[in-house]
């Protein structure tokens, strides 16, 4: 029997940012602290950035493809003082202001749980009417809104709704709970899930429209986010993937959620590639929505340093994996890196499994990979809170392994880090910050020939869920397409 495997490629990738300073108070850390001390809300409000500052913020510009991440290394820090003008749309996606995102939230609300104030609805409708990815039918879903008095009453009821504010403190609506007793359907949980859905929908719509992909030709969607969609009987039951597909016109699609903390997207990409390679599906989308809970996670450090609260954006990604088109970067499914149960917990063991072993299988050296995309969290977010420069830590371990294998000298470690690594630029949005933020730049570079190979490697903190002490990790090598469409395998 002769079986032909397809060579899977990354057909396209797009990102979405929503600048939501008004939602920072509902990040996990701010909301817990505000519950203990209400004056913290005022301190947070005083350190929130305006939309223009978020648009021109260099790490956000790198995330959306305006500039290459390497550019950040030469920019004076702090980056948040940059006055370079920015624009809403980059080559890899857009950053949307909060007034519009609340409207998108309502458009994606299938159960009439988002109640927006009537006047604000009309403002949102006007602002969204020129958005290239929203239709007349979408705008009709905004409805007519509610009187402010009704919203205030809802927020003080026996099953309180969550008030929704703009950065300036204006009350513009509320998020209703869906059940009086079910904590899985409480207003804060639903807001977390709905923001995740809405952001993933926008990333996916951007990708489908800009890459001119037919939504009706997409058979399967994998969602790789970390939200827990479900109710009291099946907390985290899931399938946000299908909810996203529904909102993107993918009428012939179904899908499923792939969970793995921060390395969910790399697991999902591997599975997408496998489904395409085995011809189960002609193409598969991988989406990841935002992590509302992470807004303002390091706000204390930012207040201590009297700097803007930089965790004020929600981030999402959408990727389509398809059969070889002769130009898009190839997924090397024969060189997966896996942090196995037996691997152990040391950094050396983890990176040997994720980096050394896959390269060995292909007969490659560490320097044969142009860029390693690992944990790409923006250090300007983490360092003021004492959490260090996470990408740099990871790159030093990779370089150290290369030195131990005598592929570089110890003196070459800093140069290796600078050349094969990159400054962190991703918002601390959980799974979104791990490896995949570089994917837009990787696809560009592997297509234009400025790069030959990129390795995506992500780690997941499984221990946070208290079911195991272990972490997890997964890596995937992308390679410039040298043309040729399939590989024969005889069984």
């Amino acid at each position, binding site marked *: 029997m002769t079986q032909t495997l397809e060579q899977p490629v990354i057909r396209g990738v797009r990102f979405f940012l929503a600048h939501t300073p008004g939602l920072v108070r509902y990040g996990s850390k701010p909301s817990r602290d505000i519950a203990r001390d209400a004056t913290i809300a005022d301190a947070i409000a005083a350190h929130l950035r305006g939309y223009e500052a978020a648009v021109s913020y260099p790490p956000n510009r790198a995330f959306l493809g305006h500039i290459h991440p390497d550019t950040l290394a030469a920019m004076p820090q702090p980056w948040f003082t940059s006055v370079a003008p920015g624009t809403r749309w980059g080559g890899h996606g857009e950053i949307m202001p909060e007034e519009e995102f609340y409207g998108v939230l309502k458009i994606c609300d299938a159960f009439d749980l988002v109640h927006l104030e009537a006047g604000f609805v009309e403002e949102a409708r006007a602002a969204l009417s020129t958005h290239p990815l929203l239709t007349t039918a979408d705008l009709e879903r905004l409805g007519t809104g509610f009187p402010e008095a009704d919203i205030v009453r809802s927020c003080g009821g026996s099953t309180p709704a969550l008030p929704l504010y703009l950065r300036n403190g204006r009350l513009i609506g509320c998020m209703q709970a869906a059940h009086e007793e079910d904590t899985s359907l409480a207003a804060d949980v639903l807001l977390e899930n709905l923001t995740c859905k809405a952001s993933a929908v926008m990333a996916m719509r951007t990708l489908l429209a800009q890459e001119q992909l037919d939504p009706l030709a997409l058979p399967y969607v994998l969602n790789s986010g970390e939200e827990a969609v479900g109710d009291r009987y099946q907390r985290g039951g899931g399938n946000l993937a299908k909810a996203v597909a529904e909102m993107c016109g993918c009428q012939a699609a179904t899908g499923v959620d792939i969970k793995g903390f921060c390395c969910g997207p790399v697991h999902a990409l591997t599975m997408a590639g496998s489904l395409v390679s085995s011809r189960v599906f002609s193409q598969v989308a991988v989406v990841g929505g935002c992590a509302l809970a992470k807004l303002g996670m390091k706000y204390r450090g930012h207040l201590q340093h009297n700097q803007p609260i930089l965790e004020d954006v929600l981030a999402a990604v959408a990727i389509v994996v398809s059969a070889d088109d002769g130009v898009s970067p190839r997924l090397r499914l024969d060189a997966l890196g896996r942090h196995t149960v037996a691997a152990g917990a040391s950094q050396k063991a983890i990176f040997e499994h994720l980096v050394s072993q896959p390269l060995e299988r292909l007969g490659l050296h560490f320097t044969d990979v142009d860029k390693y995309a690992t944990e790409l969290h923006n250090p300007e977010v983490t360092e003021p809170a004492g959490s*260090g420069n*996470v990408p740099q830590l990871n790159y030093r371990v990779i370089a150290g392994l290369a030195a131990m294998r005598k592929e570089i000298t110890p003196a070459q470690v800093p140069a290796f880090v600078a050349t094969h690594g990159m400054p962190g630029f991703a918002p601390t949005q959980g799974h979104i910050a791990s490896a995949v933020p570089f994917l837009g730049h990787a696809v560009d570079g592997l297509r234009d020939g400025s790069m030959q190979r990129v390795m995506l490697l992500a780690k997941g903190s499984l221990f946070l869920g208290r079911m195991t002490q272990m972490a997890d990790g997964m890596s995937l090598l992308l390679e410039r397409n040298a043309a040729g469409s399939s590989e024969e395998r005889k069984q």
Partner: protein
Amino acid sequence: MKLQGKKVIALGERDGVQGSAIAACAQSAGADVVLETTYCFV
């Protein structure tokens, strides 16, 4: 530092040295690891 007979709390970090790795080192040096945990700061 001599760890023989000492009680040790091993606090690790995912992107640095994980708690289980610290605990293994401490135990091999004769320490009694009373708590090991790993945090993720991102």
